[in-house]
């Protein structure tokens, strides 16, 4: 299954992936609207910055995911290998946030959690991959 991978050698820490992710999940037709002053947006990918190394982190879509196991409301599920959250079921207990070893589940002012769905609801290549200026984020099959 194709997943998103990040190569820290090429990650520049430019944070563009975060913005493209937020935009893709904003439901807006253009980026400027998505970030209109005052509008809160939440990227599902977060760049961890170090002095020399940067790394964009997002859901690994684990084969045996702790988040799904721990979900108390059945909001998280695996569909075709992708871990998805059902907003109508999430109660905002944040068990998944605590159990994810990679810190890939994010929260914001809304009650339900946010996580990467590999842009399943969008089409084609995930927005973070498309927007990365240095091909540090790739969407590919790995064994």
């Amino acid at each position: 299954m194709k997943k998103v991978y990040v190569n820290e050698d090429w990650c520049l820490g430019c944070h563009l992936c975060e913005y493209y992710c937020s935009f893709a999940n904003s439901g807006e037709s253009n980026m400027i609207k998505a970030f209109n002053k005052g509008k809160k947006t939440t990227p599902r990918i977060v760049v961890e910055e170090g002095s020399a190394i940067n790394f964009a982190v997002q859901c690994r879509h684990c084969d045996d995911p702790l988040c799904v196991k721990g979900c108390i409301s059945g909001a998280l599920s695996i569909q075709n290998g992708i871990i998805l959250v059902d907003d109508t079921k999430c109660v905002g207990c944040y068990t998944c946030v605590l159990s994810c070893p990679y810190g890939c589940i994010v929260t914001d002012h809304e009650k339900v959690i946010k996580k990467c769905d590999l842009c399943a609801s969008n089409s084609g290549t995930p927005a973070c991959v498309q927007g990365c200026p240095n091909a540090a984020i790739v969407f590919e099959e790995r064994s």
Partner: protein
Amino acid sequence: MIDFLYPDYEIIRNEKRCITCKVCARQCANEVHAYDEELDCMVADEKNCVNCQRCVSLCPTRALKIVKTNNVFKENANWPQVLITEAYRQAATGGVLLSSMGNPQPYPVYWDKILINASQVTNPSIDPLREPMETQTFLGKKPQTVKFDKEGNLLSESYPHLKLEVPFMFSAMSYGSISKNAHESLARAATELGTFYNTGEGGLHEDFYKYGEHTIVQVASGRFGVHKKYLEAGAAIEIKMGQGAKPGIGGHLPGIKVGEDVSKTRMIPQGTDAISPAPHHDIYSIEDLRQLIFSLKEATHYEKPVIVKIAAVHNVAAIASGIARSGADIISIDGYRGGTGAAPTRIRDNVGIPIELALAAVDARLRDEGIRNEVSIVVGGSIRSASDAVKAIALGADAIYLGTAALLALGCHLCRSCHGAKCNWGIATQRPDLVKRLNPEIGYERLVNLIHAWDHEVKEMMGGMGINSIEALRGNRLMLRGIGLSEKELEILGIAHAGE
């Protein structure tokens, strides 16, 4: 203290479009952009802006543009603003002005005054999509005899040569002047394309020995990075006598660019300036060049062609003739538009001659002397497109060296600030955080794309002329016509005027 200088550019930010993602601030090594928390918006100080377009290219909402400032000094036809500013700069520092990349001055570009022929009626044009169209090129001294034994086995000797699958090579750019990732991109692209890249005078990084079959190793006046294994690693050896951007002077890689890796590759202490002398101090005359050529051939068992690279200067034809008679297999001529990582501005902008004229003069001279088969001619500085290349080959070039065009493929925006060592595109820099901006995986593919595209265009133009192999285009000046050129210019170029 007043520095008298006003920034050359202004950054225009469309506040309606800016989403404050800060990518501009994060990506500007010159620290032009910044986020102001109090104002909650991006601000800019253009003082250090070099107009490299990195921020513009990465801005996700196209909120940015960079424009030339319209702040003007009092108009003066004799003293343009640039000269006034340069005087201020020198008055402040007492230094020689430095520039990078090729001569940008408004001298004539002869490529733009030459037109290419096409077939009509009397002979057919050839469609490269339907018929074979050959651009494979050999570089080196041509065999002098052709004899067979009774069984038809070839007896004649042939000389070491380079086989190019496309008539383009990447010209010398040293590791030091450009980054390791830039070098890796060039090396991988040359390998994929079946052509060659050139180490420049910076030695060969140990990671790149594996690309040796597609590498030309350079020996220049500083002899940086030259050792036996290095000479043996390359497919050909280039002696650099001169560079189009700075004929008559040497090179200077500031210590700031000499990090651990560069130091190891160049075989000089870390952090020291790498100074290439103006002349080779063992070559003060043509007979000395012959000795170096044969020393290098001796050291590599006469298995590799030797290239001698010279800058296009006034008596280039006579110099080339001398080189052809000195045992060189290939002469590379670098025009005054050729790029550089750093050169004194006054030299870059005022010394040397156009490659078009130099090439025409050299090719004609070597033919007049009957020695054109002794050497191949490679030209660079600057060939900007496939049509420039077709014109160069028709004037007599065997192959084309591409430097600036290759850098453009890698993202260079010709901001001409390489000497600042803070290339935002990860090309002309050694700062690790900047170097990583050039991912060789992307870089090599873009180089391959560029050369493939140009090769296709060369083939299209050849087909239009009814030529299906590049040998038949080489030196075929009848395929060219000048436009708006004087009798003298036409005479030097060896072409007729359009309409003739």
